[in-house]
């Protein structure tokens, strides 16, 4: 949707008296929108158009034309076929309903605790399939430690949870085995990990069966420090198969003059929920008393817990599609206050609310504070909110260079990830349009879109290297979920991408510098067993990084729970300070690099392993 201004000569008189504040210019802009809508038939889409400001377009053009290789940077190679993973996300060619466009979260979960990440892909049927009783099969793939995976879905019993949207990992019963929560069009499904390669649906027994809305994002986090992970679930649109919005009908079902699926605008939103762990494997809904119940029913998508102001108390960030985000500041005792607006993360730098979808969280600037990047719709750009401390964020999208490379794409899963192991996290984003119909519009916009890679320049800016890191990320797909982790335990971070249409893509960094790295798996004892939201501050010479164990994030996805640090040329880690969720600190010093460390709360390093090299690795 274009912005425009009315011809000032048309003239609108200034209103006096009680309406003095309603100036002519204000009316002018409103009437301009009215006239524009009348003349072009443009309708509401997700988010607010965000024109790219001065200087950025030129740079964007130059970057988009750059070719060749990026010095000292690995290529991201598509290894999907060699992994033996055969999975296809179901899809509807026309995507006539919004529920057919939003699925595709992917989770990395070491369900058998062998130290190797396994992969769970969510799946969703089309409306037509659902109406005919056809179910979509989600799939769990076991990591064979040799570069391949085996489909263990049936044995695990996690194939048909629901119309699945995304998945996150948590240990709801504190037994040390990671459990799996699947968000659905119609509530959630909680799978208890039985520790023997199987899962049991404990949704009802755990008290989560009452969650019946369109659940999207979810995140486990122990907000009150009782050692048990609580659970936040965001909800999107109030959508029911027995009352379907009519494709192309109404003004919120048009895009570039084309008939498209309706929503989210024009549809009712759905409120969010926070469930407090009772410490016995059950939950109690505390949404309202905690202040995170979303009474405005915003279109919630991804959620993530973190301590944004470093006060030792967990806060909660929730993206809302086309509406103001929530940043709930926690008091550590179960009460939250939304400070998104005053913190500068509710809207973009002009105060426009955007189509907020995925969340990347990381300390990309080595300030010791967690910043955010949110993925957005194609008429906007990904927004980087730099954490300045004290719950103060600056929209650094433009100055960082993220904005200019991301405009024009519909972004979903995103992550800060150090593919090069140079100690500075890069930004990776997967894309894919919502409407298949865009291909018939006479514009450059396409349904299939490439992935984008921005290399950290170590000065607060990023370089768009999307055309410089191999051909695989330039392949156009309709991507949704993204999870990053060291799939093959060799110190390299892979990216697992789930696509809405067709098979997934697994990218592996190859070549580039042989930098050092270190990986930490944290185990809570007094703290929650998975040590969610525990942090490690790793120091190697002048390189000081901060990592955090996170449940959820990206777009309805789950990254590797281990904290990975690239260390560049540093051959030792001078110190690793572990900040446990209960506030205690543990200092580890003089650690050899290129190892996997398991650190148990209060016991220090309990395991240290070198990579298990295998000639069969991809």
């Amino acid at each position, binding site marked *: 949707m*274009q912005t*425009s*201004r*009315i*011809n*000032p*000569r*048309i003239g609108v008189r200034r209103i*006096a008296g*009680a*309406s003095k*504040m*309603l*100036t002519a*210019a*204000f009316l002018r802009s*409103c*009437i301009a*929108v*009215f*006239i*524009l*809508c*009348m*003349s*072009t038939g443009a309708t*509401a889409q997700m988010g607010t158009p965000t024109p*790219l*400001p*001065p*200087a950025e*377009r*030129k*740079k964007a053009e130059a970057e988009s034309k750059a070719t060749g290789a990026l010095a000292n940077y690995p290529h991201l190679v598509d290894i999907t076929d060699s992994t033996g993973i055969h999975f296809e996300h179901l899809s509807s060619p026309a995507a006539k309903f919004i529920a057919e466009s939003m699925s595709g979260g992917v989770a990395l979960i070491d369900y058998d605790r062998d130290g190797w990440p396994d992969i769970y892909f969510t799946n969703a049927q089309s409306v037509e399939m659902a109406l005919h009783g056809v179910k979509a099969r989600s799939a769990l793939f076991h990591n064979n430690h040799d570069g391949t995976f085996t489909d263990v879905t049936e044995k695990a019993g996690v194939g048909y949870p629901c119309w699945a949207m995304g998945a996150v990992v948590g240990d709801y019963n504190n037994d040390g085995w990671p459990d799996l929560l699947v968000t659905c069009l119609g509530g959630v499904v909680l799978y208890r990990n039985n520790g023997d390669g199987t899962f049991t649906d404990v949704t009802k027994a755990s008290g989560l069966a009452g969650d019946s809305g369109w659940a999207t994002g979810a995140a486990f986090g122990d907000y009150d420090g009782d050692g048990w992970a609580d659970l936040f679930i965001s909800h999107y*649109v*109030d*959508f*029911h198969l027995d*009352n379907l*919005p*009519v494709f192309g*009908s*109404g*003004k*919120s*079902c048009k895009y570039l003059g084309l008939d498209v699926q309706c929503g989210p605008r*024009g*549809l009712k939103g759905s409120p969010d929920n926070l469930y407090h762990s009772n410490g016995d494997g059950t939950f109690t809904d505390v949404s309202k008393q905690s202040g995170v119940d979303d009474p405005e029913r915003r279109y919630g998508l991804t959620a993530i817990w973190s301590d944004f102001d470093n006060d030792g108390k967990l806060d909660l960030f929730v993206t809302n599609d086309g509406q103001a985000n929530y940043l709930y500041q926690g008091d550590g005792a179960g009460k939250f206050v939304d400070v998104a*607006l005053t913190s*500068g993360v509710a*809207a973009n*730098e*002009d*105060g426009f609310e955007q189509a907020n979808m995925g969340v990347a969280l990381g300390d990309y600037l080595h300030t010791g504070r967690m910043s955010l990047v949110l993925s957005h719709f194609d008429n906007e750009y990904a927004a980087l909110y730099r954490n*300045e401390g004290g719950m*103060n964020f*600056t*929209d650094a999208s*433009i100055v960082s260079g993220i904005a200019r490379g991301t405009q024009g794409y519909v972004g979903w899963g995103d992550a800060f990830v150090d593919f090069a192991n140079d100690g500075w996290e890069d930004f990776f984003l997967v894309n894919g349009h919502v409407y298949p119909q865009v291909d018939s519009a006479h*514009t450059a916009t396409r349904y299939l879109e490439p992935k984008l890679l921005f290399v950290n320049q170590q000065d607060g800016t990023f370089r768009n290297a999307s055309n410089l890191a191999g051909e695989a990320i330039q392949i156009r797909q309709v991507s949704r979920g993204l999870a990053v982790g060291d799939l093959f335990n060799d110190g390299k971070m892979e990216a697992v991408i789930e696509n809405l249409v067709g098979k997934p893509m697994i990218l592996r960094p190859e070549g580039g510098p042989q930098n050092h790295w270190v990986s930490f798996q944290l185990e809570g004892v007094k703290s929650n067993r998975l040590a969610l939201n525990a942090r490690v501050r790793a120091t190697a010479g002048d390189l000081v990084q901060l990592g955090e164990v996170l449940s959820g994030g990206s777009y309805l996805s789950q990254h590797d729970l281990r904290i990975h640090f690239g260390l560049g040329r540093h051959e030792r880690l001078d110190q690793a300070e572990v900040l446990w969720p209960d506030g205690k600190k543990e200092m580890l010093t003089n650690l050899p690099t290129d190892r996997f460390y398991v650190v148990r709360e209060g016991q220090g390093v309990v395991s240290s392993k070198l990579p298990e090299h295998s000639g069969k690795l991809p």
Partner: protein
Amino acid sequence: MIAKLGIACAGFVLLLGAASCLSQATGDKQEEFAAHIQKADGYLRDKQPALAIPEFQAAVAIDPENVDAQANLGVLLFFQGKAADSIPHFRAALAARKEERQPGLAKIQGLLGMAESRTLDFADARKDMEAAFPALQERRFQVQLGLELVGLYTQSGDLEKAALVIAQLRKADPDNAEVLYAAYRTYSDLAGESMLALSLAAPDSAQMHQLLAHEDTRQGNTNGAIAQYRKAIAVDPHLPGVHFELAELLQTSTDETIKKEAEQEYHAALRENAQDEKSILRLAEIDGRKGNIEQSYKEYTKAVELQPADAEAKLGLAKTLIEMNQADKALPLLEDTVQLEPTNATAHYRLATLYRKMGRVDDAKREMDFYKKFKEMKEKLLALYKELQVQPKEIRADEQDQP
């Protein structure tokens, strides 16, 4: 355009009701007169105006020059729907007044005008309303009478006079929906009249094409409007404002070629008038989007120099300065912007952000509150506009869309 009279007679009667002391009669007649008035007052207190009427009639039969009795009787008859019967009593009251501008009688003259209007005596109605309108103190009645007067002017095609009354009404009651609608209708009628006059006087003129372009724009026919502007330029390339107006439409296109044309038209506007601030402002925006930040900065600066009261120019310059890492220079511009255009939500947001970074917490909070207020207001208006353009059939479809 006859407004319904949403006022009660009580206000009129009570203002005058206690006045029986002005009787011109003497002796028994005076006592009889006083008795009728007393009875009438009693009925009025008991809210039985119909019973008060014969008492007032009896009273004025005794003392026809009693202003209050005549006025009260006229008021009661008028509000009983007996406009014709009320007229002689209003006139008698006015004829018997001791001062030309006796307080309270302006209302009576206003009611007389209304009664005359209802009896189709429009000439006298207009005369009495015109006389009463400027003297009225009570806003509610002034608005009602003014709207009736506007109706009379509109009926007789005297739109300029209607517009003058509308202007006073808007000053008196700026949020009154009836007044605002009357304003809209009057100005629309004036525009229609002007269009008709122009089409008769100079049907092939550049101004006629320019006018038709405005009409097309109003109706959402952008292509038609562009065609009319081009015709206007063909007739008179120096027509004031025409290049800018054409550019404004062209720049709404998503087609880059058409956008380039828009830019050319802004330049053409500047060739006609080098001080055309709005065209300079648009070129600043275009250069900004192209990444010509220095040029953009120069143009914004020039626009602000030419028109220091243009909030849009100041905001644009402020945003450019922020991008140039000169937030200190941007701050006063943003402060000016919110003074010039208090409803600009973006300016408040930007200002709040700068204050927050400077640690001016209270100022930041205040500006953020303004941002929220005006954002919400604008969203409501936009929703209203969206509703307006939806046809009834589509409205039904939208309603069905709601799960």
